[in-house]
């Protein structure tokens, strides 16, 4: 009868152990007490001995693998062959109390880096696996496409993200996995027994084998969502709106909603079960104020403008000669500030690795002065004309950013900002104004 070799509990705080090396190979004869492998704890390395005489078989984890404490990582069997069917190894007693083998053999997962179902969009909380591009046991590189997932808009390819081998695929093509769930494991070394599971299997086993964390076990689905703040105990699942479109609500809650400018429909959309009472106003108030979809859409803004020629360079030269305005960055700041159309703006100009901040009042460029310490920058201008950088997509930063890059003989201007910096109209207006000033500076000054 096979004896199990488990990853021992190594210390108070540790719930995994790193296998440093094996002293025996699969199929080797071992005697009780022989050192089987070395495991690294947070303090030192430790040798783990064979529990019985026999042959080392069914090795689950290689050197370098991190195994949860309590997991079975090998067997000492009567013969040198691996077990044909690992489900015989131990009864999978769903209700068993925490024991040496919290999970039956068949539920033990290979060690390795986890691949999770990524978050695909604001409203989606599951992803449909269309197809795997790799099979269990395949070698895989980080940038390789591992699988395709279908969102509500299109199909998306997901990279493996790790170098190694596909040790386990935990969902089958055609299944839906919740966002955040582990759906594949990529091990450093080639797996001996790569695994293909389905979500259906995993769900039933997961339910059967809920264990305290220290026993390890399969990584479980994301934490339950926090319960609603409101005390009203409504056991019903998310409710659908009524067919007749009516909202059942007490006169009091209708009045309160009306007085506070709140919309009871949003409780309906959020699936909050009817009828609504005064206490539900608190639920209504705690709903997100902006619908998620539009929030996602309006995270950041990026606009570009291409100018056939760099009108500014000539202008800067002229200004230096004729008006004694030799500070080109200041002139840039002035043009940027003017594009904002405010009485006063604080503009930061980054060029040659240096950032200088200017106070730009409306009016002549000669009135521009260095900004005081501590003033908030309204707009940043990044002058990359003398670099080789041709395009930027840097994402929203603390302030709106206008980046100047070279584009052949001309210029490219990129405006990037967060949606809360500027409205769409303001952003459009800013770039339009600035591009115009850069193209024909004199025209705008006169």
């Amino acid at each position, binding site marked *: 009868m096979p004896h199990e070799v488990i990853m021992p509990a190594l210390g108070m705080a540790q719930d995994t152990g790193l296998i440093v090396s094996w002293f025996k190979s699969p199929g080797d004869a071992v005697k009780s007490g022989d050192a089987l492998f070395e495991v690294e704890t947070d303090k030192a390395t430790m040798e783990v001995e064979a529990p019985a005489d026999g042959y080392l078989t069914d090795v689950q984890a290689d050197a370098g693998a991190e195994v949860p404490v309590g997991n079975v990582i090998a067997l000492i069997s009567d013969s040198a062959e691996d077990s044909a069917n690992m489900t015989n190894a131990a009864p999978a007693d769903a209700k068993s109390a925490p024991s040496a083998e919290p999970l039956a053999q068949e539920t033990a997962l290979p060690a390795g880096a986890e691949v999770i179902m990524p978050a695909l969009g604001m409203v989606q909380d599951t992803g449909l696996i269309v197809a795997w591009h790799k099979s269990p046991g395949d070698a895989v590189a980080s940038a390789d496409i591992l699988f395709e997932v279908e969102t509500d808009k299109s199909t998306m390819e997901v990279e493996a993200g790790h170098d190694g081998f596909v040790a386990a695929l935990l969902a089958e093509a055609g299944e839906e996995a919740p966002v955040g769930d582990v759906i594949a494991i990529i091990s450093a070394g080639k797996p001996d027994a790569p695994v293909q599971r389905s979500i259906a299997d995993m769900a039933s086993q997961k339910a059967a084998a809920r264990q305290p964390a220290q026993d390890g076990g399969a990584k479980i689905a994301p934490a339950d969502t926090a319960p609603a703040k409101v005390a009203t105990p409504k056991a019903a699942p998310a409710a659908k709106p009524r067919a007749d479109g009516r909202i059942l609500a*007490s006169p009091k809650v209708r009045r309160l909603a009306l007085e506070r400018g709140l919309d009871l429909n949003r409780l309906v959309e959020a699936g909050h079960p009817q*009828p609504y009472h*005064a206490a539900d106003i608190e639920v209504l108030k705690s709903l997100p104020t902006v619908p998620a979809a539009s929030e996602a859409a309006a995270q950041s803004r990026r606009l570009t403008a291409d100018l056939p020629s760099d009108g500014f360079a000539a202008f800067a030269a002229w200004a230096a000669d004729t008006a004694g305005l030799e500070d080109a960055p200041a002139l840039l700041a002035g043009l940027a500030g003017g594009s904002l159309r405010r009485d006063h703006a604080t503009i930061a100009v980054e060029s040659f690795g240096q950032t200088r901040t200017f106070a730009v009042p409306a009016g002549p460029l000669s009135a521009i002065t260095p900004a005081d310490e501590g003033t908030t920058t309204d707009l940043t201008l990044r002058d990359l004309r003398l670099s080789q950088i041709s395009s930027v997509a840097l994402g929203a930063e603390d302030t709106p950013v206008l980046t100047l890059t070279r584009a052949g003989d001309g210029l490219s201007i990129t405006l990037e900002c967060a949606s809360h910096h500027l409205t769409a109209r303001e952003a459009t207006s800013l770039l339009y104004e600035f591009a115009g000033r850069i193209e024909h500076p004199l025209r705008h000054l006169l």
Partner: protein
Amino acid sequence: MREITLSQAVNEALAEEMRRDETVFIIGEDVAEAGTPFKVLSGLVEEFGTGRVVDTPISEPGFMGIAVGAAMTGSRPVVDLMFGDFIYLIMDQLCNQAAKTHYMSGGKLNVPLVLRTNLGATRRSAAQHSQSLHALVAHIPGLKVALPSSAYEAKGLMKTAIRDDNPVVIFEDKLMYNDKAPVPEDEFLIPFGEANIKREGSDITLIGTSSMVQVCEAAADILAKEKIAAEVIDPRTVVPLDEAALLKSARKTSRVIVVDEGHQSFGITGEIASRINEKAFYHLDAPVLRMGAMDVPVPFSPALEDITVPTPEAVAENARKLMSGEMIHAA
């Protein structure tokens, strides 16, 4: 303060008013020597004589009619109707004559009489001696209706009734005659149309009449243990009704249960619930519930009789439902 029974309180009220005003007299069956079967009037005939404590034959319409005529011509009768159920017998004299005379005469004739009778089931007296019919008379314009809930109210309301120049019907709960309550020794009157807030609370309003006030108080005790603070109100008179007090409470708590021992349908609870609905609608977070006696004739068998009237547990259970926002009836 001394405590006396409801029976003693009524006796005192009558004696005091009869001493105060020699035109006050009592008329009814077995009121003199017997002091009525409930013994409420014991001792009065000894003090006031048979001229003013008048035994009658079993002629309810007759002595009610006599009382109406007597009241119209300068005396102040207190009619003793042995069981509230007998109101049906005297309806013409009470509702056609007494109730309407002042109005029909353009205000020239008064009928300052008191009809003293009772209500209340669970006494094993079966269907024709157990009814609570105050809704019938409350429905008739021209009659005032008082519902004392304890010895204290019984005395104060009776004295007010006797001094009132209108026909007043007072219903005492026949099961409460031996129940004691603190009653001041000094003279006091309880005005009509003034509700009594028996306890304050902010979660739910319980409006009770007559002995149902005690039921509401007991329900409030149960609810208090569950951290639900019930406000208990005794309207004391349903005509005139202290609507303002009831509405104020409804607006405060946003939930109301009205408890009365008349039948649930077409009665006192429906009237009060309806007024609260009309005038406190936008403050209601739950439907206003009515709890009355079951719409069945009162059964004789104790096993059946006892389930026909509202109990503290039943009131508390309904209160819990309203608090939880559970939909009482299908939408």
